[in-house]
């Protein structure tokens, strides 16, 4: 029946001027989200993009879908209410490292454990962009910013380990600069039913330029980043000559050419293995700070499991209560069990 034209990426763009700084990583993410929505053939009337506050949270204004730019940190609660009201909507939530992990950390924790069917895009730039450059919960220690002229003291938060602790059902990581990978991860996020937690390394070229360059730039990327694929061995390195094996329960970086191990000895990635996923989220070393003993940073889907969604269960309870109800309409409810009549 559909005589309508298939929507293209540009059909998901609005007429509003995009106001991010030139060169900001947010542009790339916006573009990929728009093209993935087109590829998924989503009906824009059924898509809602909800955000909190921050540079990244301006996102909904640029999406020609339904959208809400809510208040700082609270988007997880907004989308929970929205999905409870209408479970059929495709809801995407955009948050920042400050929005989602500082002021809204509590709400993010709870949406993850409740497993509301929402795609969470966490734009991690390790800085507060909108408020002009204070350190964030994901900033490295000793970071000198406007609010920390002597260096920050707070130990950085590991967002995906946090998500794991909150019993998230989908945990993945990508980056603004790897368009192909980012698109693949967006597809995977939408395919997962439940809260999809996708952390995206995003460059803030104004206040934290290059925060992720060691993972995103050609020269260093092969040595510092590892791209996970289901059922494939954990391999990385310039010529794919490094791998990760498990020595008992301890992960170990091995050189396939020198250490006497073959591909068959390596750790095979299994998204459904919660214990391996815990370890992968703990691959959180800073490659620049080490003498080469670091684990590469994992990108891709680290963990995925199916678990009933909160809103589905709630609606099932409502449906069951309706079938089991002994009440015959509102009058029964208003009357209750003991009444008397005044003549």
């Amino acid at each position: 029946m559909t005589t309508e034209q298939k929507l293209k990426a540009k059909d998901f763009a609005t007429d509003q001027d995009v106001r991010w700084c030139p060169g900001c990583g947010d542009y790339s993410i916006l573009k990929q989200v728009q093209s993935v929505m087109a590829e998924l053939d989503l009906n824009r009337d059924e898509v809602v993009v909800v955000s909190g506050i921050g540079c990244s949270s301006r996102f909904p204004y640029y999406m020609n879908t339904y959208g809400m730019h809510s208040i700082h940190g609270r988007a997880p609660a907004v989308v929970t209410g929205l999905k409870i009201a209408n479970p059929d909507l495709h809801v995407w939530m955009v948050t920042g490292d400050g929005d989602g992990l500082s002021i809204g950390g509590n709400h993010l924790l709870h949406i993850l454990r409740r497993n509301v069917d929402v795609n969470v895009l966490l734009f991690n730039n390790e800085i507060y962009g909108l408020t002009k450059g204070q350190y964030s919960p994901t900033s490295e220690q000793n970071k000198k910013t406007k609010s920390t002229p002597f260096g920050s003291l707070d130990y950085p938060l590991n967002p995906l380990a946090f998500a794991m602790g909150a019993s998230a059902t989908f945990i993945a990581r990508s980056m603004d600069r790897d368009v192909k990978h980012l698109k693949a991860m967006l597809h995977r996020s939408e395919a997962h039913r439940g809260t999809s937690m996708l952390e995206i390394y995003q460059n803030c070229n104004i206040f934290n330029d290059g925060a992720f360059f060691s993972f995103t730039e050609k020269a260093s990327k092969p040595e510092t980043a590892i791209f996970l694929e289901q059922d494939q061995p954990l391999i990385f390195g310039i010529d794919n000559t490094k791998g990760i094996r498990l020595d008992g329960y301890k992960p170990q970086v091995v050189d396939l050419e020198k250490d006497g191990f073959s591909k068959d000895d390596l750790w095979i990635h299994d998204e459904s293995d919660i214990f391996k996923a815990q370890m992968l989220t703990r691959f959180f070393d800073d490659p620049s700070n080490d003498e080469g003993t670091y684990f590469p940073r994992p990108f891709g889907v680290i963990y995925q499991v199916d678990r009933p969604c909160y809103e589905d269960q709630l609606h099932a309870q409502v449906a069951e209560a309706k079938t089991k109800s002994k009440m015959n309409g509102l009058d029964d409810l208003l009357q209750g069990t003991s009444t008397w009549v005044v003549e």
Partner: protein
Amino acid sequence: MSDSIQIKEEVTIKFAGDSGDGMQFMGNLFTENTALKGNDLATFPDYPAEIRAPIGTMAGVSGFQLHFGSKQIFTPGDQVDVLVAMNAAALKANLNSLRNAGTVIVNQDGFDSKNLRLAKYEKGSNPIEDDTLEGYEVFKIQLTKLTRECLKESSLSMKEKDRCKNMFVLGFLLWRYTRNLESILTFLKNKFAQKPEVLAANIATLKAGYHYGETTETFTTTYEIKKATLPPGRYRNIMGNHALALGLITASQKSGRPLFYGSYPITPASDILHHLSRHKDFNVKTFQAEDEIAAATSAIGAAYGGDLAITGTSGPGLALKGEAIGLAMMLEIPMVILNIQRGGPSTGLPTKTEQADLLMAMYGRNGECPMPIISASTPTDAFDVAFEACRIAMEHMTPVLLLSDGYIANGAAPWLIPKADDIEAIEVKFAEPREEDDPAFLPYKRNEKLVRQWALPGTKGLAHRIGGLEKEANTGDVSYDPANHEYMIKIRAAKVDKIAESIPAQKIEMGEEGGDLLILGWGSTYGVIQSVVSEMLGEGASVAHAHIRYIHPFPKNLDKIVKGFKRIVIPEINNGQLVKLIREKYLIEAIPYNKIQGVPITHGELKDFVSQVMEIPST
């Protein structure tokens, strides 16, 4: 056997005991039975904030006061006719509220040396042995002993047996007030259906108490309070929070919008969550959020999605919801925020009542953020007000703040049950789907009431963005234009002001419009004002009572009403909040009467104050 039945017009009983003695349970059961008898009534539960306050101490005393009669009952009563004291601390804490020559029923076993010490009676003295209770009618019952005796065959533990002693007193009182046991038996059978041993023990003690009155020679008189003359119809006894929950469900049913309730537990609002969570069969979706901010923002999401969205809390929670309420106001989506007030600031007096948050409701948000405020005045009024709040929210696309308080929430009264068919439907119209070639959708275009359309995600052709940033008129696009901001601030305020055109006129509850003195109230002071005004009218005074339900915007004729009296007294359980609004709005001299003790204003207190005011010569 009793020798005589004495007819009484009204009685006030206070049940007092340890928080573990089941005083609230017993009080509620006796109240329910009283209601079924056809009496008018008002109740006042008063319990400590701690779940298990130290046993036997004054801090641990839990009380339940019930005033019932064959005449109209306005308040739970200033002084009590009958005090039931389960231990020494309960007696000590409540003796001052017993009227002269009143009756005391004590559990003699609650006055051993340990109880007396914990209640801080002087060593060697015992109020039920010395002359402390001289002038009162005193009945000493060995409750613990008699209860254990009655249950000696039961397999329950001693502790469980002792817990039944409230049933003994209940049975005794039912006999004394010539009641039958039926409603209580039915209730117990339901409650303890899964615990036959406990059920048997409760029934046995209840009956033992009843027969104790009948067979013991000491009690020569029983009392009867005839049916009150209430308007005809079917009644039930109901507590404020319950009535409020039913009002919300009714609004949901009458608007066809599923009910969403987002809340974080807090006294005294939690019971609304409890009530609503039981009624999923009425399309009610309850969401216990991680905090009040999530409770409010989840309601915003639900409202955007098309549900009738409610979020409920008490003072500290309202403080947390402030920013979210501002967002709802800015988005112009329907939502109802319940604030069941308690003593503040901070954690304040969680289990005590206070009209604490009127000014926070009015002004407690950043920016120019006016919103409708509506307040409940009695437990049964909570039903109507809840319905009305939902109607205003959906018809005017605005968050609405509903104020109730602990006294209304936990108080009970007979309720003339409305018929579902008699309740007018709430018309909800969503923005219509739109085709590609239709004119552009303008989410912030307004109708003659200045109300925008409710446009649900999922509707064809209406994709649009809303948010907390200032919006351009009509399009809703983000706008930093200075003139637009001022325009939008004013139009949002005007939209709320316009609600005054569709709410009922302010009425005079009692007395004539115009005269010497108006007692102007809001919220839970309703009963005490009625009681004082009715008495003073009987004495020939020129007084009247008006009670404000619609606090923002005020009804249009309130201006004329307040200017028609020589003096206005505003009694409040706070340090003077409505009085500020009235003075500011109407530039009149209003006289505050304030009590901030966590308990309601009594009839005597208010009458004394008003009488003094009436005596001041007018200039």
